[in-house]
């Protein structure tokens, strides 16, 4: 049951081989057993989860069955869920029980999915290792002395450790794809505007996008079907026709299912800076794709190296504005002692935010301040356009772009925690995708010294269905994505 696909779980539920209550209890028991070591979940509410499962069983008994009815899912603790602690990994929100549901949560509820609990994350999604969480670091289930990646590291570890069949994540600079890579998962960041951001605690609003984290492209497609869609409550939500993101997956498997597909290999993804063992797994995946009928084309993203500097202006600038709402007045942490209103703000924010969040607020405040705005913020936005135009040019020569997700496998806890710049550079291959607003995904493509390696696929705008199919065809002929870490029985 633990290694079943979502489709298989739905069939088992529909065929009354298992009830949603039984399935939910199975995962709650595993969470109780393994979460103390992995720290993937910040909070669970077993009674609430089981009540949802019972309601799902009633729906199933009445014949009201959708693809996710009765399926338990883990939700990143960035999504507000009514009656649930919603902490965003921060002391600032350590006592915040949300009075409302995010649109993503509403959609999963409507689909009959069960909320298993809220997953740990880097504080306010700022980090690539999950070490900035107020609730302590998450351990990588493949090697508990290593990080799971971030910021959606709790979701990644939960699914990898079989503490949830699938989970949600959010991705501002790689926060779905990098932890998916480090934990052997399949994760998809959709095109900006496809999934509503309403009720998803804001980090950098022009980059933030939610998406699925699961054990296969097919599972990701089923989750995205539930998550995506126009939402009038999010001013950047796009009005587009409803899509079935799994529509290409059911075509019969042929010898060369990807014949005619052009895969672009940006030379900037294949230069120095990537571990040799990671690159060897990527090269093997390229050979596999050729065997599936795809044609490789060399492309170039000449401004990609500027994506990290531009991102570390734009994201902190937006964060400094978004996080100004945390003032100790309407919700969240308030310092116990202060002299006056201004002092209350300054002390509440100093005590409520962790070091990385404060650094980014300070960077953002500086680059937006009088006299520096043009040199930093506007320059970064101009570079953002150059980066987006590089992708537009590349997609004239190819259908999807392929490369590594992360330059290394999971690193040791503590290795980069003291050096922000080294931490930032671990997102070198993912950030440009957010700046351009494109869909991107990571899927397992091998192991290096026992640690998972992630393959990144980047699609053109709104090409999620094709991306998922390109990943699915690879997963039909490989078994990397099916492997589970040992020692978590």
């Amino acid at each position, binding site marked *: 049951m633990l290694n079943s696909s979502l489709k298989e779980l739905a069939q088992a539920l529909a065929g009354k081989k298992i009830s949603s209550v039984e399935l939910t209890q199975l995962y709650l028991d595993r969470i109780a057993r393994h979460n103390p070591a992995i720290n993937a979940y910040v909070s669970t509410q077993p009674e609430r989860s089981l009540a949802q499962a019972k309601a799902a069983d009633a729906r199933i008994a009445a014949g009201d069955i959708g693809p996710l009815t009765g399926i338990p899912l883990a939700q990143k603790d960035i999504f507000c869920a009514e009656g649930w602690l919603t902490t965003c990994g921060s002391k600032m929100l350590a006592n915040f029980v949300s*009075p*409302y549901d995010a649109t993503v949560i509403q959609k999963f509820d409507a689909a009959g999915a069960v909320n298993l609990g809220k997953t740990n994350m880097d504080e306010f999604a700022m980090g690539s290792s999950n070490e900035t969480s107020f609730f302590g670091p998450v351990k990588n289930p493949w090697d508990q002395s290593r990080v799971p990646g971030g910021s959606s590291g709790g979701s990644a570890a939960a699914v990898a450790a079989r503490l949830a069949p699938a989970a949600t994540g959010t991705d501002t600079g790689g926060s779905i794809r990098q932890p998916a890579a480090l934990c052997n998962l399949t994760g998809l960041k959709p095109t900006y505007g496809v999934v509503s951001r309403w009720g998803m605690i804001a980090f950098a609003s022009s980059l933030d996008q939610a998406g699925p984290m699961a054990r296969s492209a097919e599972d990701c497609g089923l989750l995205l079907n539930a998550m995506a869609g126009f939402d009038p409550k999010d001013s950047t939500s796009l009005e587009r026709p409803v899509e079935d993101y799994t529509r290409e997956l059911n075509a019969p498997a042929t010898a060369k299912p990807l014949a005619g597909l052009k895969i672009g290999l940006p030379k900037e993804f294949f230069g120095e800076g990537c571990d040799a063992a990671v690159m060897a797994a990527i090269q093997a995946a390229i050979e596999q794709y050729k065997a599936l009928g795809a044609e490789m084309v060399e492309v170039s993203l000449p401004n990609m190296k500027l994506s990290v500097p531009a991102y570390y202006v734009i994201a902190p600038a937006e964060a400094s504005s978004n996080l100004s709402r945390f003032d100790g007045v309407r*919700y969240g942490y308030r310092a116990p002692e202060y002299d006056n209103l201004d002092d209350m703000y300054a002390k509440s924010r100093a005590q409520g935010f962790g070091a990385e969040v404060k650094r980014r607020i300070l960077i953002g405040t500086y680059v937006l301040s009088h006299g520096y705005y043009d040199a930093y913020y506007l320059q970064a936005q*101009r570079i953002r356009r150059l980066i987006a135009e590089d992708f537009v040019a590349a997609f004239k020569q190819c259908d999807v772009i392929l490369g590594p997700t992360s330059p290394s496998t999971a690193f040791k806890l503590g290795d980069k925690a003291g050096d922000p710049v080294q931490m930032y550079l671990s997102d070198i291959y993912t950030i440009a995708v957010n700046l351009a607003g494109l869909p991107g995904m990571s899927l397992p493509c091998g192991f290096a010294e026992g640690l998972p390696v992630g393959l990144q696929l980047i699609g053109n705008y709104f090409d999620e269905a094709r991306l998922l199919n390109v990943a699915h065809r690879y997963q039909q002929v490989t078994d990397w994505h099916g492997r589970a870490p040992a020692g978590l029985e």
Partner: protein
Amino acid sequence: MSLTPEQVRRIAHLARIETSDAEVQTTLDHLNGIFSLIEEMQAVDTQGVAPMAHAQDLAQRLREDAVTESDRRAAFQAVAPETEAGLYLVPKVIE
């Protein structure tokens, strides 16, 4: 470029984050490291390139100025640090 301790104190004040003298020094070191990364942008000639604020260059959608939500003041104030008679309480601002 390199920030000074004075500049760090100034932006910490603008951001309303209390910062001790000891924290100013560590923060300064970290921020200078980050800005040395950011400075790589400055060598790029971007003359004539329009700044890009949105991935699809779309303007934000506007909605009718109409009431769409029900009154949930009690639920929203239940999570506030201090309220009274439906109002948020803060330290006295006007003497």
